[in-house]
């Protein structure tokens, strides 16, 4: 009736339209804001070959997820730092990612040593730290914000040993391990426990050091004790020459290896001498599942070389974290969001390149519940020709 009433409606409509538009743009600005994930890996120094593989796995997974629409419309942004395989640098990298880059969660570091030094920082700052290559003790026991999907050697080695002993009819073994490297030494500790548990006699135990080039003294001694197999806890840098030199000495028994030996590079580095190596690991390039196949093909195409276990676990880890991010309600408050991630992660179940995966809670030294280990079944394979053939 009056002009006011007539103009009120359009005005109201105009205001609400503006308000709505503002709200929508605010929401989409929120939605457009990327999710920042911190990645601290060894991209230089002695552990670089593992760190670079891991970074590749993360990168490829993040790109895949972003191409598929991201996490509820938000893209993942990786902030990558090089922790050089040194514990001080891991600490510095973590601090930068937590306080300066304000990451939502952290991946890394590469080496177990670095994790033991840097993970307490993450725990103290109440941000999730997710390791994909840390297998030593004392990491997930740090606290409830520490996660890993790297299956510990304590879980893998007994299975490898049992399978190899059964299939290859092994009655007694010799042991050879690197005594100055955390990885190979803890591998040895786990092997020894498994050997004791399975009551397998050991003919002799020999050691070598990182950087050695000649193992013939140890191998000659081992040969003289006539074992049925040699348990080898070594990284590929020493492991491949060990296999070659063993064959040169006429020592032709199978090798039972730890995680370090699970790489397709063994066929190249130990060419002609690579048969008869048994490894167990959560991932195998021969495991022909759909998820794994597409991962292998995509990785090989992008990086011009076959993936290894480190890349596979990183790739899966990114997907696992994404599942948690999808479930978590992210409000924009950094501290709350980090807690939301920590709450959502333990319940994630995912089947990726490494197969079915879930988390398993561990307790710390005093029995209190702490962080989360990987709950995954290892695959045992052996080398024949140019391939790993899966035995079970």
């Amino acid at each position: 009736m009056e002009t006011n009433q007539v103009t009120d409606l359009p005005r109201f409509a105009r205001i609400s339209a503006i308000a709505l538009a503002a709200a929508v743009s605010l929401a989409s600005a929120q939605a457009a804001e990327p999710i920042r994930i911190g990645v601290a890996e060894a991209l230089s120094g002695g552990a670089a070959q593992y760190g670079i593989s891991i970074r590749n796995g993360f990168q490829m997974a993040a790109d895949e997820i972003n191409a598929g629409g991201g996490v509820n419309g938000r893209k993942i942004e990786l902030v990558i730092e090089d922790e050089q395989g040194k514990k001080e640098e891991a600490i510095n990298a973590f601090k930068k990612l937590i306080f300066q880059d304000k990451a939502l969660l952290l991946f890394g570091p590469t080496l177990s040593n670095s994790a033991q030094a840097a993970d307490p920082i993450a725990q103290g700052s109440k941000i999730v730290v997710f390791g994909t290559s840390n297998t030593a003790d004392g990491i997930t026991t740090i606290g409830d914000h520490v996660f890993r999907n790297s299956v510990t050697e304590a879980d893998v080695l007994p299975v490898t040993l049992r399978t190899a002993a059964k299939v290859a009819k092994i009655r007694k073994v010799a042991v050879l391990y690197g005594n100055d490297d955390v990885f190979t030494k803890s591998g040895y500790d786990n092997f020894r426990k498994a050997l004791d548990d399975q009551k397998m006699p050991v003919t002799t135990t020999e050691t070598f050091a990182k950087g050695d080039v000649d193992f013939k003294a140890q191998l000659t001694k081992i040969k003289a004790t006539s074992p049925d197999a040699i348990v080898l806890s070594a990284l590929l840098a020493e492991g491949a020459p060990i296999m070659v030199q063993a064959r040169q000495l006429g020592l032709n028994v199978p090798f039972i290896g730890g995680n370090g030996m699970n790489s397709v590079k063994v066929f190249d580095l130990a060419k002609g001498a690579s048969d008869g190596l048994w490894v167990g690991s959560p991932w195998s390039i021969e495991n022909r599942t759909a998820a794994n196949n597409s991962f292998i093909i995509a990785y090989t195409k992008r990086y011009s070389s076959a993936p290894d276990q480190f890349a596979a676990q990183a790739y899966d880890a990114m997907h696992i974290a994404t599942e948690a991010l999808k479930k978590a309600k992210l409000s924009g408050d950094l501290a709350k969001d980090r807690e939301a991630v920590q709450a959502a992660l333990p319940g994630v179940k995912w089947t990726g390149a490494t197969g079915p995966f879930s988390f398993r809670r561990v307790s710390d030294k005093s029995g209190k519940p702490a962080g989360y280990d990987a709950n995954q079944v290892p695959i045992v394979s052996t080398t024949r020709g140019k391939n790993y053939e899966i035995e079970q």
Partner: protein
Amino acid sequence: MLAQQLFNALSLGCVYALFALGFTLIFGVLGVVNLSQGAVFMVGAYAALTAIDQLHAPLWLAIAIAFAFSGLVGLLIDRLVLKPLRKRDAPHLIPMIATIGLGLAMNSLVQGLFGAENQRFPSEVLPQDSLQIAGVSVTVLELGIILVSFVLMTVLMLTLNRTQLGRALRAIAESPKAARLLGINVDGLFMLTSFVAAGLGGIAGVLIGLYSNALFPLMGQPMLHKGIAVIILGGMGDIRGAMLAGLFLGFAEVLSVAYIGSDMRDAVAFGLLFLVLLVRPKGLFGTVQERKV
């Protein structure tokens, strides 16, 4: 087993001696502990690998290329870094630190260019099979390494003792100032020594890369540590001493693995080293006098 272990010791000892020869030559003539020798060693191996991969060079040519390339690197190090420091008469710790920086830079450069992962020489390059001689497994490569190290040592010794060049080098080793006064072209000989010593390091890199089937950017570091032990045991700057000490270390290591226990190996080696330094610092086999500066 003893015969096999003795042969193992011989080949390992020659591996150590091979590296130490270049290292000790530089110390003897230039008076510098050149801690970039590990990197130079590694560079030679990679140069040979590139030659074989990209140019399809046969092994002998690849080794020659490694010698030349490493030698060139050594020469550049001398000209660009060591010479200015000599001019300045810097205390001898300074060049050592400079060589540490150079080694670090070279290791990282190679890692950036070639990647951190282990590589190897194609297996077609050298037959991998072993022969059985009197019950002992022997490979062609091991025989090659033994031969090469003895030949090199002999050539170096003959040069030093029987030629004029050798006399000049020995004069410089005693006292560069006096040698200069005698009219010896000290500068030129420094260049030559740097070239040859680095080149020898490069050859060692190729041979040891073949032996261990493992090339990686940090491969020179463990050799460097062993090399330091060898030149101390052998008397710093003494060629024959380096050879004997290399063999000695090889035997000590192999025999301690065989008869004491492999985890005692390094303890034995270092214990010996320490003892030698305390009792006879000029080295077990040293005949060279300490240099008069």
